[in-house]
């Protein structure tokens, strides 16, 4: 087939260009290795070294907030109409509850000291000043602040009544350590969220009860019900732990950079692709192919698959190198393959679109400016230069709709053990972009109007 010869030739042309090869394949390998090694310490299996160090600052007053919780019925209209006996019962119940359930223990012993968590997280409880000092000296990655009312809110949230307060855990991050910060945020979110889930369960339970007209206090006095709430608390604990076991396998620096570099350098492949058509025109080989009867569509399809194959090769090289040499685990190989295909599809579309634009503009200066600005913007928005979090808020979601951004998130997601449902939005976004880019490319090449810009001889004499 003719098209294979064209692709084969285009790839050869691309691969004989040492500069391109260096930039597109060697460079990401080197950068990943250097960045991963410099920022990570990840080569060691020593858990102590690998664990992220944080400080926990307690801004709450345990005893005071516990008392405040015990006062809770006095300030609440739900309990206004209770008789002496009922209030006495409630008090006993709350005493039992607060004796049984200790939010501090739950957070520290149950959550942070959990065996799996300990592998990746080392904490010390400090006051804020001391913690900030350590953060400044890069001795810890983050400070987790358990705010005033943390204990009170935890009691309220877990107490079997239809109330729910925001936990509002604060995190101060070390800006130099992006990955660690992300992990800490992830962990704290998961704690808050998991508490949330069990709390929502609790609220729903009561709402149903009230709807069905069951007397509140009959409910709370019932041994059975009390027991069931202990179970909820137990389950909540279990849930948090479980979630951390299989979800929060942290991304190491090397893993993060392997993905980030791949996502960035495939963009450059698209940028390089931008010159493919223009170069043919300039070399007069475009004209020669036309004379040989090769239609423009075939030439363009050739470029498309050239960029496709090159990008695929780039990603495979990165995956292989980072897996075999750097020990990166990219996660489920079928999902990785799927993401790779979708990513390659969108990059090939992007490259061909750029190629057709540059071809149309007809000169290198324009092509240069155009593709480098676009590629820069995409890399920026996609979080290849700086963490997305630093960008203005409205740009955060934008990264889902550009090829490198969606690819980065999808790969990261699979590394963290997500399944196909969770990465589906990214895949659809990648495919969608590929389709849109390709349509634009076809449109531009069609409006180009015959072969009027093709010259076999330069107009010079």
């Amino acid at each position, binding site marked *: 087939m003719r098209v294979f010869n064209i692709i084969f030739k285009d790839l050869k042309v691309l691969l*004989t260009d040492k500069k391109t090869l260096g930039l597109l394949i060697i460079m990401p390998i080197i950068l990943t290795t250097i960045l991963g090694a410099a920022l990570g310490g990840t080569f060691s299996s020593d858990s102590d070294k690998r664990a992220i160090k944080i400080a926990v600052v307690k801004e709450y007053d345990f005893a005071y907030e516990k008392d405040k919780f015990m006062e809770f019925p006095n300030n609440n209209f739900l309990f206004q109409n209770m008789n002496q006996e009922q209030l006495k019962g409630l008090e006993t119940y709350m005493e039992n509850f607060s004796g049984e359930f200790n939010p501090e223990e739950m957070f520290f012993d149950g959550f942070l000291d959990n065996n799996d968590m300990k592998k990746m997280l080392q904490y010390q409880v400090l006051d804020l000043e001391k913690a900030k000092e350590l953060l400044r000296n890069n001795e810890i990655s983050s400070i987790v602040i358990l705010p005033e009312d943390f204990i009170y809110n935890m009691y309220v949230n877990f107490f079997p009544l239809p109330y729910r307060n925001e936990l509002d855990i604060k995190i101060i991050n070390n800006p130099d350590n992006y990955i660690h910060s992300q992990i800490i945020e992830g962990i704290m979110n998961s704690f808050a969220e998991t508490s949330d889930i069990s709390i929502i369960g609790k609220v729903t339970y009561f709402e149903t009860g009230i709807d069905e007209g069951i007397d509140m206090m009959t409910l709370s006095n019932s041994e059975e019900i009390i027991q069931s709430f202990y179970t909820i608390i137990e389950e909540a604990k279990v849930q948090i732990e479980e979630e951390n076991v299989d979800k929060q396998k942290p991304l190491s620096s090397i893993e993060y950079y392997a993905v980030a570099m791949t996502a960035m350098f495939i963009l450059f492949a698209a940028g390089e692709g931008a010159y493919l058509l223009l170069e043919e025109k300039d070399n007069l*080989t475009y*004209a020669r192919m036309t004379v040989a009867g090769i239609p423009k569509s075939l030439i363009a399809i050739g470029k498309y698959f050239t960029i496709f194959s090159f990008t695929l090769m780039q990603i495979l090289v990165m995956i292989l190198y980072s897996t075999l040499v750097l020990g990166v685990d990219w996660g489920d190989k079928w999902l990785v393959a799927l993401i790779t295909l979708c990513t390659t599809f969108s990059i090939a579309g992007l490259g061909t679109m750029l190629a057709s634009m540059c071809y149309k503009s007809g000169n290198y200066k324009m092509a240069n400016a155009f593709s480098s600005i676009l590629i820069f913007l995409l890399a920026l928005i996609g979080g290849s230069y700086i963490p997305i979090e630093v960008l203005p808020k409205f740009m955060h979601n934008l990264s889902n709709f550009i090829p490198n951004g969606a690819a980065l998130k999808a790969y990261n997601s699979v590394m963290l053990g997500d399944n196909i449902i969770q990465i589906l939005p990214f895949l659809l976004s990648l495919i969608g972009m590929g389709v849109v880019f390709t349509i634009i490319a076809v449109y531009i090449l069609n409006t180009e109007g015959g072969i009027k810009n093709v010259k*076999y001889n330069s107009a010079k004499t």
Partner: protein
Amino acid sequence: MSLLKVNNLKKYFKEVKAVNGITFDVKKGEVFGLLGPNGAGKSTTISMISTLFNPTSGEITYNGESIVEKPKAIQQKLGVVPQEIALYPTLSGLENLKFWGHAYGLRGSELNKRIEDISQVIGIKDRLKDKIEKYSGGMKRRINIGAALLHKPDLLIMDEPTVGIDPQSRNHILDTVLKLNEEGMTIIYTSHYMEEVEYLCSRISIMDMGEIIASGTQEELVDIIKGQKKINIKLDHVDDTLISIIKTIEYVEKVETHENEMILTTQNGENIFKDLISKTAETESNILSIDIKKPNLEAVFLHLTGKALRD
């Protein structure tokens, strides 16, 4: 028998009338020359014949079929050597030949055989594995030609294939053209070197400013300035008396002098020598040598346009 016919062909680029109504035909088996100065419209004509440009108006037929309507009619039969190198500079000569062979549908052992033959023809066997960008100008030109020959075209168009190369490569290319023609290939050769066209072509069209100003065999063209001869005379010295006496000789139309040399343009000057020698004898000058130049295409072009083919 005409293989290619061009009828009232025009190509305008906005205001530039690059080709402005030319008509000619190329017969099977001949070497047809398109001679003209820079900017005459030769390459534009060739681009239209090779289906690269659509004509503004006019017809081109190959074997009786319109190639404007049906480009396929000519594409597989045609080999084009473009005026400028149209190759992939970072690929080797061999890789380039392979690709262009593929482009014309050649495969496998057949392709390899053709590459072997062609590299023999263009004389570039030992450097075939080197990258084109490492080649000299002459070698690039040879590959540029070779790429057009792989598929054994019936019609070969060469657009100034010898521009800017060393005399050795040039001679090689000219001989290659003759050899290919002997093997039966029809060739259109454009140039602004009249010696090349004189050496190669059986029939010639002279182009200037988008138009064909004369066509025919070399003899027919020279006939346009029939009888006109240029005579170079070297003397021991030249003075005004001599010049005025020479001017009185019948049939002498023009006298130019360069130091001790006189160039006479004469018409029907069969019997001019007797007068020339006797009249000179009357003066103080002595003739050292006489050289009669046959009229050539350069002279024809000069005669028709009043300007030289090259500056």
